[in-house]
């Protein structure tokens, strides 16, 4: 740059060419002219001009010698780039400061190029430089945008359900504008009540404008205090040094602060301002800075020179949502209606739900009750079954002829085992009576003979078959037989009594009367005492025997009747006999015939023949073995034998 500047000024510094470059003729004429001015009467004429005239050089050094010297020095400076740089540097700042707008225009392309090349070489550097400035700005801008969006959303939501909201929706549809925009146009109700322009450095009030009917405290104090608060926040919170409070909010009163290089604009806004208002405030502040930069910078407490900014501030207080403030906010009937319906529906559903819940709770309670009841019943049932089981086992234990050796509950089953007399009660039958589920019972019984009198009695009754005249019963630890019995039964009974197991009940037969004794015995003896005599070789009884036969018949009938009453049967045997004269076979036949004759005679006298049997003994059973006639007469006879049998 210095070299080009030197080139530009070269013509000044060049020594005049000794011969060329000077119009010597014109110079000579000029000098003559000058001489004439001094001496008008002179008639001097330029007498030729010589090519080389040292006087001219003399004249030149006389006229501009000093300038030539100065120019010489200047030339040295300009020709030495180092010295020229120092000289220009000394004045450059002043030159730039006092330059007009053209300097900016001239410098802008160069600066743009320089910046562009710098960024191209190393973008990092520029990012580092701009970072502290740009990041808070971006943050603030994004924050404001988000605020704005939320505010719009809030408003939209608040308004979208009123009649007015519906009207606006229609308007949005009609005009093709976004609904949010229409809402914002209509709804943001605010009034800028005060605007303070505060000198940043001193906190002194530069200008204050208040809207009509807006009251506030001494604005000078307020502005200082606002500055103090800004300082306070900046000092108190790290990271806020480069910023400050941009919003203060108190109810529906907001303080929006816009900070400029020399002054801070604070707007006190009542209501709900749109974020765009901030942009307007920023524009006002920046316009004030543009217009009155110098005055703001040198402000020293005298605001008289800045009276005109009040007009700008008045522009701010004019910012308001026209008309909206005067009109009341639309009562959100639709919201009210919808809310009412919603409350109704929700309430109804709540009630319904509540009832369902109640019902569910009731059912749950009932189920729980039922379950408890079932559990209780189950427990009861179990207890009852166990009780029944225990009763059953007790009953088995008490049952004669049953010995319980094991009774337990295993794997849900009742197990009972032991010994059982076949004559004892059937455990299965007892089980059925007990009510215990037979499917749950496992029984194992081993047979044995019990010595209980009952069983012994039963067994005796089974084996002895006591005749109807005999009754067996238990008396203490004995079995007593009572009544009357034939000697045959008695004999069997005695045998059986002897066979009874030791230690068990004994059979007492002492109370049984022997039918062979007593009246039956007497009749028997009487009947057996009769002998029906026969004459020799005669088969009919001797004469005079009718009375004997009558008596015999009578006695037999009586015995038969008596025996029958005693559950006995009396069997009669008639045996014929002969003497020893004659052949034996004849005698045998004769003896049978004699017995038959007596039978017939007895039949004739009413004796039942089925109880009488006949037989012949011939000469083999004589009463007297002598061979005398009397002996032989005695031996010719029919004897009677009686046998008493139990009725069967």
């Amino acid at each position, binding site marked *: 740059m210095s070299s080009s500047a030197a080139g530009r000024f070269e013509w000044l510094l060049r020594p005049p060419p000794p011969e060329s470059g000077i119009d010597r003729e014109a110079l000579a004429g000029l000098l003559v002219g000058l001489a004439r001015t001094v001496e008008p009467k002179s008639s001097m004429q330029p007498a030729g001009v010589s090519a080389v005239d040292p006087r001219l050089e003399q004249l030149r050094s006389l006229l501009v010698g000093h300038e030539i010297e100065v120019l010489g020095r200047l030339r040295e400076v300009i020709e030495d780039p180092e010295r020229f740089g120092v000289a220009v540097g000394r004045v450059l700042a002043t030159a730039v400061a006092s330059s007009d707008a053209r300097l900016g225009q001239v410098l802008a392309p160069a600066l743009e190029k320089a910046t562009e090349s710098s960024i191209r070489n190393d973008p990092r550097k520029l990012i580092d430089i701009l970072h502290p400035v740009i990041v808070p700005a971006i943050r603030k801008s994004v924050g404001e945008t988000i605020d704005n969006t939320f505010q719009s959303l809030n408003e939209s939501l608040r308004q979208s359900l009123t009649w007015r909201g519906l009207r606006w929706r229609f308007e949005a549809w009609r005009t093709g504008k976004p609904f949010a925009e229409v809402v914002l146009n209509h709804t943001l109700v605010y009034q800028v009540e005060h605007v303070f322009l505060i000198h940043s450095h001193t906190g*002194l009030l530069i200008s204050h404008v208040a809207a009509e009917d807006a009251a506030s*405290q*001494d604005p000078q*104090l307020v502005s200082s205090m606002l500055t103090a*608060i800004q300082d*306070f926040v900046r000092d108190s919170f790290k990271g806020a040094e480069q910023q400050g409070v941009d919003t203060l909010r108190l109810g529906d009163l907001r303080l929006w602060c816009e900070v400029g290089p020399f002054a801070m604009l604070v707007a006190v806004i009542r209501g709900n301002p749109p974020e765009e208002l901030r942009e307007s405030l920023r524009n006002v502040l920046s316009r004030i800075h543009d217009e009155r930069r110098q005055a703001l910078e040198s402000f020293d*407490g005298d605001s008289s020179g800045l009276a005109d900014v009040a007009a700008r501030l008045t522009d701010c207080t004019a910012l308001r949502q026209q008309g909206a403030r005067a009109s009341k906010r639309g009562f959100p009937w639709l919201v009210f209606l919808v809310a009412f319906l919603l409350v109704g529906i929700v309430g109804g559903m709540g009630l319904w739900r509540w009832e369902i819940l109640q019902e569910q709770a009731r059912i749950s309670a009932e189920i729980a009750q039922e379950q408890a009841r079932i559990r209780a019943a189950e427990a009861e049932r179990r207890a009852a079954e166990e009780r029944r089981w225990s009763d059953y086992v007790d009953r088995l234990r008490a049952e004669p002829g049953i010995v319980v050796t094991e009774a337990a509950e295993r794997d849900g089953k009742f197990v009972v085992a032991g010994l059982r007399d076949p004559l004892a009660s059937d455990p299965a039958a007892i089980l059925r009576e007990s009510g215990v589920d037979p499917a749950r019972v496992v029984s194992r019984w081993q047979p044995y003979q019990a010595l209980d009198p009952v069983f012994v009695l039963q067994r005796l009754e089974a084996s002895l078959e006591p005749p109807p005249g005999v009754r067996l019963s238990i008396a203490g630890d004995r079995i007593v037989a009572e009544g009357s019995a034939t000697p045959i039964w008695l004999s069997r009974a005695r045998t059986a009594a002897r066979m009874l197991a030791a230690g068990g009940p004994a059979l007492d037969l002492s109370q049984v009367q022997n039918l062979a004794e007593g009246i039956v015995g007497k009749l028997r003896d009487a009947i057996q005492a009769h002998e029906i005599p026969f004459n020799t070789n005669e088969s009919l009884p001797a004469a005079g025997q009718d009375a004997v036969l009558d008596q015999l018949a009578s006695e037999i009938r009586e015995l038969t009747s008596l025996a029958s009453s005693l559950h006995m049967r009396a069997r009669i045997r008639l045996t014929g006999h002969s003497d020893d004269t004659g052949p034996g076979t004849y005698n045998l036949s004769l003896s049978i015939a004699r017995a038959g004759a007596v039978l017939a005679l007895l039949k004739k006298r009413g004796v039942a023949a089925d109880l009488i049997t006949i037989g012949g003994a011939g000469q083999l059973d004589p009463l007297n073995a002598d061979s005398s006639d009397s002996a032989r007469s005695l031996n010719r006879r029919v004897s009677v034998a009686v046998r008493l049998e139990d009725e069967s």
Partner: protein
Amino acid sequence: MTVAIQKKICMLGGFSVGKTSLVKRYVASIFSESYLTTVGVKIDKKTVTLGERVVHLILWDLAGEDDMSSLRMSYLRGSAGYVLVADGTRPATLETALSLRRRVEADCGPLPFALLLNKNDLREQWAIPDGELEELRRSGCWVRSSSARTGEGVEDAFTDLAARVAP
């Protein structure tokens, strides 16, 4: 037409020197004293008329602490002058005031100031020798003894300071 100008004046002084009560009766104030303990500063205004001119002294009453570090220096920014207050019955507070002055001059350069030795109504407890005051005056200090109770020295101090900050 009167010309009104404003000047920022800081009130500085050690703990319990009567700084706040000194101005209480003579200034316009809208903020409560609780600002001192919360924000650390309380703004009052003292209007002084100097002939044709009206000077509004905007008084920044800074929370008085003996501990220098707790003083918010950013509050001093842009001050046209300041008032130093000390307690005449406690020489240590004069030391504090003078060190505050050094602190202010280090940050803001030399500024007009007034030094008030307060509580001069308690003459019997007065603990600062007259010689010392004379010496301060000789060194160029504007020094007055004052009383918040009687108001002595207060008006003078503000009027004089106003004249010096708004020549």
